[in-house]
Each structure stands twice: as structure tokens, then as C-alpha cells.
């Protein structure tokens, strides 16, 4: 009981502090820092921060959570470098942007300059200016040493930290709804003792978040982007949060806070940055689309894997309205297959796989799933044909021996060369 009483007490304190800050939504003086670092980090402190960040990166890589598309990483890195170069004061500071697979909208920065952005966030954005707004915000957490400030501030209240830690763990657990994000959450929460890391993900104090908003927007504007797009980031994600009910994107923590920050951005854009909007400013919609062209279908795949089938279907419909690629049809088949094993679902899945198979750029996986479904239904001739085409496309597939065995059982010859046509 004692422990629970402590947690409640500290949550009340935090809520009171945040409530007080929420009353004042006016943008503050850009030159004034939200807080100052009490003392520079000791060598041991710095080592621990660096080590933990590198270790998290390694864990994410090992867990397969990274999106690992060099083109997207390089594109985001260029934007981050541009935003960092705005301030001479941070010459030499180096950020590394990585994309993680996830269904919800997430972004966070670690004190060594590692910035993580989720595919769920990238998919919801429309242009380069919008991602520049997010990156500008996260880079400010890095350049302004927000984790250190938060850590030093927490160190003053060590009596409460255990309770806070538990509260953050609970908060993170509640926010990470989808499997990929839960994996990410699990990676992060393994650092349960490192409160700074938890706050890096779940959000800093209101003052620090506001400083990151303000400085991020300044960077974005000075880099030539349209300031209006910063407001749109929040509008788009606010709409997504409304649609998803309690499934609020983690990046924006909580609904009232999101509205608060939206109001703050609107005030800044209509006041201080009124001249930084309009057609003369850069939005980079085409550039963004060109660099993230495959992201939407990848996101459909991520959503299907997380069994968020409704969201996957909605996104897939949007994609198919513009292009009905073979991969899109394959994913339509996957969606139907994951929904149910009823004969009707199987029929829909087969129709979609066949549509994909009719295209010259059919993914091998579509032929494999088509063949397996035909086989399960006892339609062996169709299964044999699909498996033959599968082997042509993927002769070295890990399941090739199983396909060969099946073809043999059916008295069918395996295709002789990957170039030939088995049909």
C-alpha cells in the first residue's frame, strides 16, 4: 500500500505542474531557454548516455524493428542535416535519423543524436515541410540537452523516482498498442532504470516540449519551409487521434496536450512567422512522395502483421484508388486471408492473388500463397501451376524443397530454368 500511495502522490504532483503550465499557451520568448543544465554531464554520465543510446540502436536492429530502407533514411538524414546546420552553435553536432516499423505515429530523440521516426508517422504526413517540423522538434531535444535537464531535474527528487518510473512504464505500456510498437516499447522499457530514456519516448516536461516546438519551428522556417505545414502536422494527427479513439499516437501523448500544442503552433505561425507562409515557401510534396513511394504499402503490411486489419484495409483502399499494383493486389489477398478462413474469404483472397499473378511484376509471395490456398482446397492443378511460377521467380526460396516434393507427388515437372515459362 505504501508503494501505491507514493505513486499516486507523485502523479498528482506531475499533473498539478502540467495543469499550471497548460493555463499559459502564449508562445514564450524564443531567446529564453525553458531550463538550464545545472552542471555539464560528468564523463561517466555522458558515457552512460552514449552507451545506452548505442545499445538501444543495436537492440532495435537485432529485433528487426528498423524499417531499413537506405533511401528513406538518407532522405530524412539530409533534412535533419539541413535543419542542424541552421545554427552555428551546433556545428559538429551529428544526428542520425532512423525509421522504425510501427503502426502508431511516433518520434523520439536520444541524447547522442539518434532520432527515431515510425513508419506510422511518416505514412500520415504529406510533404517534406511536415517531416521537417517533426525532425526540427526532435533535434531540439538533442541540441538543447533535454534528456540531461530532465535527468538532473529528476535526480533532485530521487525519493519519488521509483514511483515515477513505474508510472512511466504503465504509461508506455498503455500507449504502445500494436505489436511492433510494443516490441519497441519492450526494447525501451528494458532500460527501466534510465528515466531519461523513458521520458525521451513518452514526452518531456511541458516547458521542454514547448521549447522544442518553438525552436523546431524556427529551424524549419529558417530552412525555407512553409510554416503553415507545422500546423497541418498537428491537424492531420489530431484528426487521426479522433478517428482512433483511445488509440492516440504516442508522439502527441494525450489529447488535451495535442490541442494545447496545436493552439501554440497556430499562435506562432499567425504571429511571429506570419511572413513564413504561402507559395514562396517550400513544402516539398513531390520530393516527399518520391522518396516514400513504397511506404504506404509497407505500412499496410505492417498493419496486417499487427492484425490491425481495419486500418490496413482503409490505407490499402486509398492506395488502390491511385494505383492497383501487383503488390497492392497481393496485400488485398493477404488482408482477406487474415480476416477469416471462410470459403468467401478464401475466394476473395484467391481472386486478389490471381489479379496480382496476372501482372508481370507479381511478387513471388503472391504465387506461393495462391498455390497454398489452392492446395488446401484440393485444387491441385491450379496449385501446381502457381507453384511452378513461384519456383521460376524464387528458385532458391527456403521452401523450394517443399515445393519440389509437392510437385513430385502430383507428377508434375519442376520448371527447368528461372527464365522459362511454365504455363
Amino acid at each position, binding site marked *: 500500500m505504501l508503494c501505491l500511495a507514493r505513486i499516486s502522490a507523485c502523479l498528482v504532483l506531475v499533473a498539478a505542474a502540467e495543469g499550471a503550465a497548460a493555463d499559459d499557451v502564449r508562445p514564450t520568448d524564443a531567446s529564453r531557454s525553458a531550463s538550464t543544465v545545472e552542471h555539464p554531464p560528468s564523463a561517466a554520465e555522458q558515457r552512460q548516455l552514449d552507451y*545506452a543510446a548505442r545499445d538501444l540502436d543495436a537492440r532495435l536492429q537485432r529485433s528487426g524493428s528498423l524499417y531499413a530502407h537506405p533511401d528513406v533514411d538518407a532522405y530524412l538524414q539530409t533534412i535533419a542535416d539541413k535543419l542542424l546546420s541552421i545554427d552555428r552553435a551546433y556545428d559538429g553536432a551529428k544526428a542520425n535519423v532512423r525509421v522504425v516499423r510501427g503502426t502508431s505515429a511516433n518520434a523520439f530523440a536520444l541524447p547522442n543524436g539518434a532520432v527515431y521516426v515510425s513508419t506510422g508517422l511518416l505514412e500520415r504526413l504529406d510533404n517534406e515541410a511536415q517531416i521537417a517540423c517533426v525532425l526540427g522538434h526532435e533535434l531540439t531535444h538533442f541540441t538543447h540537452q533535454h534528456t540531461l535537464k530532465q535527468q538532473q531535474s529528476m535526480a533532485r527528487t530521487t525519493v519519488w523516482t521509483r514511483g515515477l518510473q513505474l508510472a512511466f512504464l504503465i504509461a508506455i505500456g498503455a500507449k504502445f498498442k500494436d505489436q511492433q510498437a510494443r516490441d519497441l516499447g519492450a526494447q525501451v522499457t528494458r532500460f527501466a532504470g534510465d528515466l531519461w530514456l523513458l521520458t525521451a519516448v513518452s514526452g518531456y516536461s511541458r516547458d521542454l516540449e514547448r521549447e522544442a516546438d518553438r525552436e523546431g519551428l524556427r529551424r524549419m522556417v529558417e530552412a525555407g519551409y512553409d510554416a503553415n505545414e507545422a500546423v497541418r502536422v498537428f491537424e492531420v494527427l489530431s484528426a487521426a487521434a479522433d478517428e482512433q479513439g483511445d488509440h492516440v499516437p504516442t508522439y502527441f501523448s494525450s489529447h488535451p496536450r495535442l490541442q494545447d500544442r496545436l493552439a501554440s503552433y497556430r499562435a506562432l505561425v499567425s504571429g511571429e512567422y506570419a511572413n513564413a507562409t504561402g507559395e514562396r515557401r517550400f513544402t516539398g510534396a513531390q520530393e516527399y512522395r518520391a522518396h516514400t513511394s513504397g511506404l504506404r504499402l509497407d505500412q499496410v503490411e505492417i498493419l496486417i502483421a499487427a492484425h490491425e486489419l481495419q486500418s490496413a484495409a482503409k490505407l490499402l483502399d486509398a492506395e488502390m484508388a491511385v494505383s492497383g499494383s501487383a503488390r497492392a493486389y497481393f496485400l488485398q489477398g493477404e488482408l482477406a486471408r487474415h480476416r477469416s478462413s471462410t470459403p468467401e474469404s478464401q475466394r476473395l483472397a484467391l481472386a486478389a492473388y490471381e489479379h496480382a499473378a496476372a501482372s508481370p511484376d507479381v511478387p513471388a509471395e503472391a504465387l506461393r500463397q495462391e498455390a497454398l490456398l489452392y492446395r488446401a482446397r484440393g485444387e491441385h492443378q491450379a496449385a501446381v501451376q502457381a507453384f511452378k511460377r513461384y519456383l521460376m521467380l524464387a528458385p532458391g526460396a527456403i521452401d523450394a524443397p517443399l515445393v519440389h516434393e509437392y510437385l513430385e507427388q502430383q507428377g508434375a515437372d519442376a520448371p527447368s530454368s528461372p527464365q522459362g515459362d511454365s504455363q
Partner: protein
Amino acid sequence: MSLAFRDTASVLVALALVSVCVGAESKGPFLVPRDTVVQRVKTIGVMPLNVAEVVPDPEDVAARYEAQVVTSLQAAGFSVVPPSAMREIRERLKNTIGGLYDPMTGKPIKDKVKAYKDFADSEYRSKHPVDATLYMAVVTRDAPMRDGSASWDGITDSAGLSWAGLLGAHLSGTAPALSLGVLLEDAAGDTLYSNGGGLQVISYTTPGMTRFGLMVPRVHHIDAKYIMTDPKRDARALAIALGPLLGTSDPVAKAKIDLPPTAVPPEVAALRVQREELLLKYRKVALAPLEIPELAQHSKAEERYRPAIETKLELLGFTVVGGKTYGELWERERTSAGGFFDPFTGRRDDARLQAARARVFKQMQEQYGISAIVFPSIVIRTAQFSNGLATWDGVNESITHNKGLVRFLDRSSAASGELSALSLEVTIADAAGATLFEESGGIHVMERVSGAALVPVPEPELFSELTTDTRAVDIAFAPLVK
């Protein structure tokens, strides 16, 4: 028992058991009315039983249960496709694909497992068009325990204490237990029925007394010989798990069964030969690379422990030769052998491993004249904790961050149980691979207690203190010190 299916079915069944427990009051085991199930389901395909890893002889357990389930379903009027149908498909596919495990690491190869599962499902469905599929698994559960009794999945198991209550010791918490879970799914993949029948606890805690008269919790592990070997427990679990589906209410379900005996771990001496003999006959040794579980700080641990162990060995009178040559020769041998793990079972092939070690030993003997090899490894142990301290391998360590009065008042200090901890294990072996010496020294807890939960220690904290390294080396070699 195949890993892919063990995982899938066990997860399905475990999830179903949780939902049954949560919703037991309102829904019971049927997700659609029993009459509808009986009307719609004429033929049931029974999948092979998946057995939790803690159970010895899983094949025997599976054979026993599967036979009973098939007989019971047939007696209730269902047509049954026996588990052997799926087992035959799986065995053949496993052979065709060349096993599912990586021979170098012993870990399952994810893509192979997926392919194997997809092909087995597809073949089974084409050959056996059943109305429903019955998945079964023996799963581990946390059984709520109160005052010496654990209650879960329809049974209550005594945890074997009565006198303690008189002394005011009221132990509450959970005890790891086994249940038989069943889940019936229709052809569309919708769950029709899911239920669990409790089998037995596998360990439990009782209050013990120190020689100074202080009460401390003691964890007792059921002897592995008595895990799932009692036919009365089998019958009771089956009756509870399947009774509602079969439409039977067997009185055996209510039977109370005594707790099986607990295991007393055998005492093994660290020195397998006389200390003097070891120091005299096996003076010239090679030091193998540090083996370590998958922790991010592998190189850091190797860098720290190797010189500490070398120094210790030299202080004890050994001569360490060959530097890192043994590691290089061993890596070459391992690569040319293609690993030592069976691709079909994932188990280590100790005979091949031993033969390879003997070959490397011979090379080291010819080159450096060694008479023994020292194998250091970081291992994960189970440490018991109580009163705020974890105890294992010669070490006591605090399990909370709190100190002084705060620690005293913290509820964590009142908790007791088991957690994971790291130890340094040192083995010295001769040319024939015989163990001459084996001892462990505790390094660091891997978890701490926060409130009522175990929280992992952040990895940067592990191996972060030189004093814990030195302490572990000292404890591990202590029996060799005169």
C-alpha cells in the same frame, strides 16, 4: 514435438485460458452454445499435444494424453482425425526441408519454420477436411497462492504447510503451475470452445526458519520425476478441460490429490580431483574465450574477465599459455564442423562437440604442451530473494535501489521469490574432456523488485563495476585457494 506448432498452439491456448478465466463467470468455456457446436461439428481434427519445456519426456506425455482425448471424443459421438495425421505430415516436411534449427546456434530459423507451418497446414486441410480442429497444450500458469493453497483452472493444490499459519506467516502470491489447455476452432478459424484443467504446481513457497529463529520464505521445486507422471492428475485435468464439451461431469474432477515430493538438489563438489593433484598435474593450461549469453556487452565482458581470470590462475600457480590461440583454433574447428547443434531438434550434439574439443586440445598440446583447458562462461542463474536481498553463488545483493528507512518501508523488501542473476562459471577439463573442477561466483542480479513487479536491470549497469568482476572471480576459484 515441433517448435513452430508448439509455439502457435501454446500461445493460442494460453490466450484462451486467460480469456476463460476473465470471463468464466459470464460465459464459461463455450463461445457458442454447446448444442450449436454438437450440431455443426461432426468431425474433429486433433492436433498433437504441445508440452511446456519444464515437463520431462514430452513424447510420453503427448502419447498418453492424445490417446485419452481421442477415445473420449469418439465416446461422445464425434468422428476424429487423430494427431498422428498431422504428426506424419510434420515429420516428413521437416525431413524434406532439412530441419528447422541453425546448426551453428541451435536456434530456430524463422523463415524455415514459417514455410514448414504453411505447408503442413495446407496439406492437412487438403487431406482432412474436418469441421473443427482441437488444439491442446500443457502450459505454465501463475497459480494464485494463499496461505499454502494454490487455486487455478478448476483445482486447488496444497502447498504443504499448515503450522506456519499458527505462527502468523501468511504467504500470498503466485506459484508456477501447469494446466492442460484445450481450444476448439471451426474451419473458418473462429473459436468455439476453450477451457483449462489444472495439473500441478511445479514449485511453491513456504515459511522457513533460520537457526536464529527468524522466519524466511523458502522455495521448493517439485522433483522433475514427479512432473506429469500421476495418472490421477491426468484424468482430473482432462475431465475438467474437456468435460463440458463431452457433456460429462466426472466426479474425478473434484478429487483432491496430494502434493508430489520436492527435489533436493544433489551436492556436487567443485573439485573432482584432489586440489594438490590438480595444481601439480595440470599446471599448464589454455584459457578458452568467455562464453556469454546474448548480452550487448559481450566484448566488454570478455575484455574485463579474461585478464582477471588469467591473473587469478597465475596467482594459484598455473601457467596460462597460448594467449587467444585456443579461441582461434576452436572457431576454425566449429566452422569446419558446421556447428554442433542438431538441425532437427535444436539440441547440442555433445559427442561431436567433445570430439572437436579433443582435436583442438591435441593441437594446443602439441604447440604449447598444455595439460588442461579452463572454460569460463557467464551463465544466467535463478536466485532466491527475500527481505530485500537476493542470494546465489556465494553472493548477497540488494534487489531494490532504496536504502535505509525507505528500503525498510518499501513493500519490495517484504516480497520473496526467484529472479534471474548472472554468475561466472569456471570449468577446468583435461584432454579427455573430463571435468576436473567446476565452480561459480555470482556477479549481478538481472532483475530488481519494484513494487510488486520484477523490473530488468538496465544493461549498461551489468558488468559496470570492477569490484563485482573481481568478487565473482574470487568466489569461482575459492576452492582452489588453500
